[in-house]
């Protein structure tokens, strides 16, 4: 059982490295040409209308989409967007979660209790609604404020804001429970007795103990964040067209399903396999690093 899990973890890890190379390095290595219209043939955003739905082969290994754009380039840029959004969101969530979780243990009771109650309230509320609310606020602000319009029409920043807001409560709850379980360990008590400040205890004695589990949980949560980004983009309120994203590509492929059902396959495979891989790695790491399993 344990061997099998390790094997899956390495497979998932290998895939993730391949994904990073595919999204960030591969586009740089392909030699592109200029189309007569002046657009780069591998441009992932601008439409070249005279060559829609080209078959696989030649300079387009995965063919072109409904607007004549290279599917491979769009997949790569979609992967880039997903990874950047996912990592940024998890970074913000980790930072906020660490702060709130530590406050939830060490702050005086009149601060601690309301903060944790609010965290629970945010945790219990459905993510999709909170996300819609934040993206809606951006959208509403851009109606009166033209400077915001390009940000909203591109979509990355509202999505990061929405997903970060829904991602931190679970990290905060985890940090709190982990710190609370370490708080009464002998070495922490000893440090306290010898006059160490709370800040010193947390950064030197407590955090090094929970890094592993936090990393593992972040990996699993990253899968959820990438799925959430794809869901929002699929619904049309995440990364907005013409910018490529796996969710958005699935949505346009769905609309062209009658004539070109095969265009569903590339984004569906990329998205599903990436989510599998992240959860394999996360679960494997968690099994390895969880202090309970040592």
């Amino acid at each position, binding site marked *: 059982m344990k061997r099998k899990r390790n094997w899956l973890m390495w497979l998932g890890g290998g895939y993730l490295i391949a994904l990073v190379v595919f999204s960030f390095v591969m586009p740089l290595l392909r030699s592109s040409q200029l189309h007569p219209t002046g657009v780069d043939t591998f441009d992932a955003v601008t439409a070249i209308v005279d060559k829609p739905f080209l078959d696989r082969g030649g300079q387009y290994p995965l063919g072109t989409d409904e607007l004549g754009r290279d599917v491979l380039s769009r997949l790569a840029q979609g992967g880039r967007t997903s990874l950047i959004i996912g990592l940024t969101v998890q970074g913000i969530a980790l930072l906020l979660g660490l702060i709130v979780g530590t406050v939830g243990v060490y702050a005086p009771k009149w601060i601690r209790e309301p903060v944790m*109650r*609010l965290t*629970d*309230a*945010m945790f*219990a*509320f*459905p*993510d*999709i*609604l*909170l996300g*819609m*609310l*934040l*993206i*809606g*606020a*951006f*959208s*509403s*602000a*851009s*109606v*009166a*404020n*033209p400077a*915001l319009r390009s940000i909203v029409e591109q979509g990355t920043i509202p999505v990061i804001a929405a997903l970060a807001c829904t991602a931190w409560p679970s990290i905060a709850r985890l940090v709190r429970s982990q710190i609370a379980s370490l708080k009464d360990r002998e070495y922490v008590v000893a440090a306290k007795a010898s006059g160490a400040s709370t800040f010193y205890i947390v950064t030197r004695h407590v955090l090094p103990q929970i890094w592993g589990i936090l990393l593992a949980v972040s990996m699993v949560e990253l899968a959820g964040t990438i*799925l959430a980004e*794809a*869901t929002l983009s*699929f*619904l*049309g*309120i995440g990364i907005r067209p013409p910018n490529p994203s796996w*969710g958005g590509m*699935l*949505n346009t*492929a*769905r609309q062209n*399903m*009658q004539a070109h*059902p095969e265009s*569903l396959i590339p984004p*569906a495979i990329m*998205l*599903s396999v990436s*989510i*599998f891989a992240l959860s394999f790695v996360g679960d494997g790491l968690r099994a390895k690093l969880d202090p309970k399993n040592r």
Partner: protein
Amino acid sequence: MPSAVPKVLRAVGLRSVYGLFSLIFISLVVFLADEVSPGDAATVMAGEKATLKQVEQLREQYGLNRAWPIRYLEFLGRAATLDFGKSYFGTKRNVREMIIEKLPLTAMLAFTGILIAIIVGISLGTIASIYRTRPPDTFILIVSTLGVTVPTFVLAPTLVFIFATKMNYLPPTWEVNLRAPLWMYLILPVSILAARPAALLTRVTRASMIETMQQEFIRTAIAKGVPPGRLVLRHALRNAVLPVVTVIGTSFGFMLTGSFVLETVFTIPGIGQEGIDAILQGDMPRIQGIVLMTGLMFLLLNLLVDILLPILDPRIREAQV
């Protein structure tokens, strides 16, 4: 046990207070989301070409020039009577009327979905646990693993392609004048929506049943000569149901997201479609109304699960304060 009743009531009361608390907190977030974004309702309503004076007039008219805590309390008071004002754009429709029209369809979709998921999941899980490690169990495990891992918006287009586009059995999208009975339009979205929770419930039921069947009271029941059907349904399943109900509770969030995705795929005119439309327009009253009303429905459902749990399982009744 008569003394258990007040205990349950107290726990439920406590839960309701927490639920109310989180709803009020969320309403503050909902209000502030509008507040911190530059440009208020007046600038949105006045449009791009409006002069400062026109905007100022609108602010005066709608009372937008007062301090935000006062306006929040007013917002809360109106929200308590389910009054979210009027849409900024288009026909400037009353938001409450819109929600009353659209929410039932989404709720029906989600409810039917979870109901089917519960029936299918518990049945399959029980069957798998009876045939543990034999072919039916292996088959059910493979199907349920697929069901848990394939995202809804990958599954949905695939099934639409097979059943609606290729085989032409079912209508692929909603129509304004339904040409076929309602269930023909709902069967595909509801089954897709139910797939993931059903798969999750199958796995949880299976694991919980296997654990329960190994316990001593089951051995006693077998020795006593309880017939196999009664043994599984009354003795084992009733004791195995606790983790299952917990998973049902955590599935509600997914049902909501899933309904929104399926409304998009099948163009079902529900609250999700309305919400997406409102977001694309930047129509804050509609967004606020949808988030708060749908959130309220969601919190009430969770409360229901909290009430149901101790009724189903006396062990929790004992553990609760």
